[in-house]
């Protein structure tokens, strides 16, 4: 494609320059108009300036300055504006900004604007006459003084109303209110002391109302303490005196804690006291803390005395209650240990929580342990536990044969030849009065070493049992049971349960079973008489005899020797052969030995 022809280029060039010319002509026209407008503005501004209308003159000077078409009179205009414009600009700016910040509720900036006004005002008022006049004139249209008063008064009233109506939520808002009140210039409070007093009074009233409301609601100590702490922190933060708050809290809390102590509700007391302690940072010298310390010490002493009196449950409960106030963990542990030693069955119950132990027995300082316990569970288990110091209980388990109805459980160390613990069981028997069982604890196992039904059982000597009327061998006799090679008690022989004495000694064995040989001399009072002594009384010239009446055996034959077993049971009056009343000893015969 070829370029345009010369004609076309020339034509285009002409059109372009023509258009440019038209534009420039418009500009030229504009410039001429503007230049004359500037001149007119300057002339008018000068006449206004001379007549003293500074605000309007400044406006005209400004209009003339804004007109950049020509620079005529610029020097003079600038000189005038250097004085007048800053005042107008600043005043207008302050007015505009103040209104804007008020609308935006931007107090910080409003205060900054106020301070700017104050600073500038000082300069202008102390400046030239022209500055003073200009400032005075600018105050009229801007009404800056009235505006600031209205703005700050409105803000102050709204913040005070918030405090008064208690419509503030949270620390941040309180802080905000305080900051806002603090930021409001002193001028609008009537002075510095008045400002401080008004703010303090407002917050005092506000916080008092809050505490009052809590009291009226019967609020918990925690809430009151939290609120107290919060208020103390806020007041400290605000640098407002809070002595009144300390007194109020001290009085109220003392009252509440006293009430808890009076009700013996120690847990509640401890809880509350612990909560109250949170105030200690701010209320070091308060009475309530002295009270808490004293009450706590008293309660700890009480718990200690309960422990000493084996009232472990109450002591532990008290310790538990005091937990929030004092670290009683060790005390509780100690009390529980003491309780375990006092009632070792608790340990067994803890170890075997599914079992019930209707029968148990414990002993102290045996077999190398502080405490030992033997227990029989409902399901027929037999347990032996050793407790030493704070160690875990060592338990040996076994199983009872059958289901004996245990009436008594005890330790019988004498049953064991190796000084092992032996658990003796006294159970109900169908055949005899008792069913004696004994289990020896041998190196982690239970071995039954005795199983006998009898009317009575006593330990005759080390590893020798004396069984009265055992079932089986030795029936109706006192039988000896001794350990065999395996340590099991077995019948060995019958044992006489009497003392061989001479008949004349019988009165010395009152109530005791004795055996003696006697010669029946007569029958009397349903028994046989045995002459104990015969002495001649020279005063009466008679033979005086003392007798023993054998009773309980009717088949005595007189003038025959008998070996009898029985007990001297007392005296009885009877008439002797001489027809005289005599006093005879009575011997209850249990058995006549062949």
């Amino acid at each position, binding site marked *: 494609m*070829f370029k345009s022809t010369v004609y076309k280029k020339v034509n285009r060039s002409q059109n372009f320059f023509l258009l440019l010319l038209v534009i*420039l002509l418009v500009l030229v026209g504009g410039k001429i108009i503007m230049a004359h407008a500037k001149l007119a503005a300057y002339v008018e501004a000068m006449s206004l300036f001379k007549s003293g209308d500074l605000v309007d003159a400044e406006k005209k000077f400004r209009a003339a300055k804004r007109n950049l078409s020509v620079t*005529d009179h610029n020097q003079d205009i600038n000189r005038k504006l250097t004085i007048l414009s800053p005042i107008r600009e600043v005043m207008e700016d302050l007015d505009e900004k103040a209104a804007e910040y008020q609308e935006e509720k931007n107090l910080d900036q409003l205060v900054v604007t106020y301070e700017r006004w104050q600073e500038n005002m000082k300069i202008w008022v102390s400046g030239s006459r022209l500055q003073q006049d200009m400032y005075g004139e600018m105050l009229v249209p801007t009404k800056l003084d009235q505006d600031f008063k209205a703005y700050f008064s409105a803000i102050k009233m709204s913040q005070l109303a918030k405090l008064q109506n208690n419509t503030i939520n949270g620390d941040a808002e309180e802080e905000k209110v305080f900051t806002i009140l603090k930021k409001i210039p002193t001028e609008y409070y009537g002075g510095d002391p008045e400002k401080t007093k008004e703010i303090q009074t407002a917050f005092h009233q506000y916080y008092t109302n809050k505490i009052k409301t809590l009291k009226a609601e019967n609020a918990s100590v925690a809430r009151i303490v939290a609120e107290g702490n919060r208020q103390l922190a806020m007041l400290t933060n605000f640098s407002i005196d809070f002595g009144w708050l300390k007194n109020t809290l001290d009085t109220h809390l003392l009252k509440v804690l006293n009430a808890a102590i009076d009700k013996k509700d120690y847990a509640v007391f401890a809880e509350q006291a612990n909560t109250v302690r949170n105030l200690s940072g701010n209320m070091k010298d308060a009475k309530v803390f002295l009270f808490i310390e004293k009450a706590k010490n008293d309660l700890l002493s009480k718990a200690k005395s309960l422990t000493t009196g084996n009232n472990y449950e109450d002591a532990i409960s008290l310790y538990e209650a005091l937990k929030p106030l004092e670290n009683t963990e060790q005390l509780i542990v100690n009390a529980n240990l003491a309780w375990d030693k006092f009632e070792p069955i608790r340990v067994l119950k803890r170890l075997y929580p599914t079992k019930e132990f209707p029968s148990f027995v414990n002993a102290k300082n045996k077999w190398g342990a502080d405490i030992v316990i033997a227990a029989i569970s409902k399901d027929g288990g037999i347990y032996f536990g050793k407790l030493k110091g704070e160690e875990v209980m060592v338990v040996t388990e076994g199983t009872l044969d059958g289901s004996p109805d245990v009436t008594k459980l005890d330790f019988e160390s004498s049953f064991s030849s190796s000084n092992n613990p032996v658990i003796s069981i006294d159970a109900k028997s169908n055949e005899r009065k008792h069913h004696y069982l004994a289990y020896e604890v041998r190196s982690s196992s239970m071995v039954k070493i005795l199983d006998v039904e009898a009317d009575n059982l006593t330990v005759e000597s080390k590893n020798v049992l004396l069984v009265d009327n055992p079932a089986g061998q030795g029936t109706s006799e006192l039988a000896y049971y001794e350990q065999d090679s395996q340590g099991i008690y077995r019948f060995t022989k019958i044992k006489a349960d009497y003392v061989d004495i001479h008949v004349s000694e019988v009165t010395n064995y009152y109530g005791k079973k004795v055996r003696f040989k006697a010669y029946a001399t007569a029958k009397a009072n349903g028994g046989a008489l045995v002459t104990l002594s015969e002495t001649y009384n020279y005063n009466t010239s008679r033979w005086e005899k003392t007798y023993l009446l054998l009773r309980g055996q009717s088949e005595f034959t007189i003038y025959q020797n008998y070996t009898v077993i029985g007990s001297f049971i007392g005296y009885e009056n009877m008439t002797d052969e001489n027809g005289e009343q005599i006093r005879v000893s009575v011997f209850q015969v249990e058995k006549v030995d062949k």
Partner: protein
Amino acid sequence: MAKQAVQLSKKKRTKYRFQKLKMCKKCNRYSVLKDKICPTCGTNLVGIESLVKSILKKRLTTEAIRILIVVCLGIVFAPTIKTMYYSLIAGIIFCISYVALTSLFMKSEYFHQMKKLLRADFRKIQAGIQYDSDLAKADVKEERLAAAYEKLREIGDFISTDRLKVRRVMVLNDIALRSDMELELEGLIPSSYDKDFVKYALEVLKINRMLITKKCIAYFIHYRDAIVIDFGMDSLVSVAGTALRMKLYILEFSTFIEEFLDYFPKERVLRLCSIIHANPEVEWGGLKEKTMRVVAKKYHYDPDFKSFTIERERVISHV
């Protein structure tokens, strides 16, 4: 194909060839044809001179506007009212002075502008002529031979390529040529041998010997072998006979004439003798001798040659 009988218009003549140039302002296209209206858009074509005048006027206006722009800028950027008015007055004076001075040198400015235009629009002019040539081609296709020739003739004033010459010759060869037609030959001589051109030249020779110029004779001499093959010896004899038209040609092409002297008709020999006889001071070389010999041999009995033979005998006797 029978030759077309047409009426060719007279060629428009101008003092300078560029004066034939016209331009369509709307299509932005140049033309060298005689048409006054643009065949594309129908608007009037403007002659190159009018165009230059118009451009000159516009240039002058533009310059004046530029001066006014500078004046306006001066006013716009004048810092004070006083300087603003100074600028205005100075600008107006400058503008008037410029217009006055330019008017004084308007004629030389016109030619300068013309030169600039022709140089600057050279390619556009070429394109315009090419377009005209295309129009002529279209006319040939539609057998409007007269219009086509007239167009090619106008184009021929600006372009002298063999291709265009041959195209013109080919068109002319299809036209029944008449003596009343404004024909041309020298301008159509190609730079190489062209059978159509030789055919046209021989046809023109029959109608108007005047058109057979020195260049044309030289062309025939240069390509005589090819011409003898295509058109026979007679064609060369005719051209040699035509060379007797002027004394200058006879001297220039004496050898060529001498070669074909024997085949000349009586009338051509007689003309040659007359010229030689009338110019005894001219050195004719071998031509004169050979002419005398041919006259003595072929026309010694002819009374028309009597004066030449007596003269010859007198010379011989004198010797």
